[in-house]
């Protein structure tokens, strides 16, 4: 059974249908990419899955729970974590504190434990901090734990956001344009890192990405949205050769079915 199954998900903002009856699933352990031209509804779909938006109609089943329109914190508790398109770190908190906030939903200390600093609260705090350091190491930010998030270089901020998401021990990780604004070298590193997330941590990953090299390189499956409608789905090769996808990106009138040059697609999108 798929880890996440969305059926007939629709989201309307007033008269605008941002996501239109999208069926969609993410198999356990897969890397699924979501692509589409600007305004296709990719981020909206992300926000629906993570509970920031309530779908107008449709259901989303994650790991046996119906999460459509649930509270974001509850959804995180169930095992979905995300990063944001325009990085949303806690700027004036240190890297380690950022990661520790990510563990919030896995901690039990309540008001009384916090005030009295009970032994169990202290134990928990300590183990969470240690795990935070491990995660920072894992994403390549070892030794940076005391740096304020805002003082980190751009690429490191992206990594920190992933570390923070990993801190909640998710089953499904949603990455919203993880390579946006990166140079080719950084992009390659990030691509390798995403594969590593799956191979080493067994995560399922849903990826929004405009860089076709990244998408075609690591995805098991690619879904294409255009004007809120899913127009294609399949392996990277199938999608690359799909006429409707080519039309969506380059416009109609292109009748030859030559494969898209990944660089061209990336430029159109980015």
């Amino acid at each position, binding site marked *: 059974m798929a880890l996440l199954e969305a059926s007939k998900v629709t989201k309307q903002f007033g008269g605008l249908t941002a996501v239109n009856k999208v069926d969609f699933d993410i198999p356990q352990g897969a890397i699924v990419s979501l692509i589409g031209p*600007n305004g296709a509804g990719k981020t909206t779909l992300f926000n629906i899955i993570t509970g920031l938006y309530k779908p107008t109609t449709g259901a989303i089943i994650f790991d046996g729970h119906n999460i459509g329109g649930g509270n*974001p914190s509850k959804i995180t508790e169930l095992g979905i974590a995300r990063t944001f398109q325009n990085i949303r770190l806690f700027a004036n908190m240190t890297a380690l504190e950022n990661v520790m906030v990510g563990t919030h939903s896995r901690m039990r200390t309540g008001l009384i434990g916090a005030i*009295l600093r009970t032994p169990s609260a202290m134990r928990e705090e300590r183990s969470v901090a240690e795990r935070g350091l491990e995660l920072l190491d894992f994403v390549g930010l*070892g030794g940076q*734990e005391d740096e304020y998030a*805002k*003082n980190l270089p751009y690429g490191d901020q992206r990594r920190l956001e992933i570390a923070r998401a990993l801190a909640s021990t998710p089953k499904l990780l949603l990455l919203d344009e993880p390579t946006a604004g990166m140079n080719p070298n950084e992009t390659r590193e990030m691509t390798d890192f995403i594969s590593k997330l799956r191979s080493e941590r067994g995560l399922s990953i849903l990826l929004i990405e405009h860089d076709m090299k990244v998408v075609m390189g690591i995805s098991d499956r690619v879904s294409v949205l255009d004007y809120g409608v899913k127009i294609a789905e399949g392996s990277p090769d199938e999608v690359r050769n799909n006429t409707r996808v080519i039309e969506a990106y380059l416009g109609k009138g292109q009748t030859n079915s030559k494969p898209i040059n990944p660089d061209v697609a990336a430029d159109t999108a980015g």
Partner: protein
Amino acid sequence: MQATKTPATPPQGRTMRRVLEGSFTRGQIIGGLIALAVLIALPFIYNKDNLTAWNMKAIFVEPPVLIGTMADAAQYVILAIGLNIVVGFAGLLDLGYAAFFAFGAYTYAFLASGHLAQLTGGKIQIHLSFWLVLFIAAAVSAFFGALLGSPTLRLRGDYLAIVTLGFGEIVPAVFLNLGNIKIGDTSINLTGGVDGISGVDKPGIATFGLGSGICRNLKMNPNPLTGGCRLNNLNPEPYYFLYIGIVVLLVIAVSNMRSSRLGRAWMAIREDEIAAAAMGIDTVKTKLLAFASGAALAGVAGVMFGAKLSLVGPNSFDFNTSVFILCMVILGGIGNIYGVIVGALILYLTQTIFLINLPNALNKLGTDNKIEFLAKTDWSGLKFMIYGIILVVLMIVRPEGLIPSARRKAELRGETGEPRALVAGAAGRGSDEAERANPVATAERESLYDMQTEEQPTERNDR
């Protein structure tokens, strides 16, 4: 988990040390103990006997007045610490904080005075212990904090400020008007109206078997009913020590909260509420906890207020009080517990001692030195202008407060010179690009999230 193992040597980072060592750095502990020692020594050094012995005149203010004023200042220190939880930690602007102060004071006035006996013709007599009411009043204020918070905390920024402002106006008005309710032919004076409730009990102290004989030595009155001692207004020293003790306990409690999971969640919400929600923080519940905790501290301060003054009336809890406390927090250093303590002390002592004595002092200075301008001006009319100028100058010189929190300082001044704030970073590289890529969706998401959050409570997951 097969992440690279951290080295065996204990990590020495700042954040990690904070986790391991507790809520206070070594510097804070030493500084705190020194400050405490100075405060405890104060009444023993600066008192009437010593002044006569040293053949000195009082400096600016008579010893008992200073000690009594310091005991009053302790209430404001607690109020500032409490408001700092709401405004400084969680980033929620509360302009009606004095309302919770009022709940605490009236709770004590009801539960520990002759007022109820008067009201019921002697049928009900409640004189609960000061110590017990501290907790009851904290709970009552926290309850009203949660009550106000639950429908309003989904509002943001300015809207929340306006609602709390209204609440702060309503509460004293309710206490005022409850002094004259007419049901049928009977009119009931529930709260004493504008005169308030007087004859509120003084705190009692147990003597732990030493007998009430020692009370006089400790400048307290013996309490034949309980065999303990009772504080009195003639001698402010017992109040002074008692209130310092309460402040110390609350500083420890709030520091612990700040450096816990809860404190981190407050900070995260202040930084970015959407990201905080996505990280698994129940934002409404967490903000409610901030509101309730802050209110609980105000409740404690209210009890201390009633117990010291023996009179609780509606005029002590108006909008001015709320703004006064907010000024203490901002001027002292928003977000920093020690900053707001200093801010509270400075503002309170400035207003109650410095400004009161300033006109006479200036006149005297003029007469002594034959400066006619100083001697003849009526400074009492100008003292609040001077106060205002002091505040404005302080805010220009140190916008981050006297003792700012490291975070706030970094926010206002920029730590590295090179502005790499997330906002700037996002605007510069990442999100510029992202936003160009998807401007509609980004704008949409921002505006619609606001709508979305307002619907949320009805949409709780029904699993």
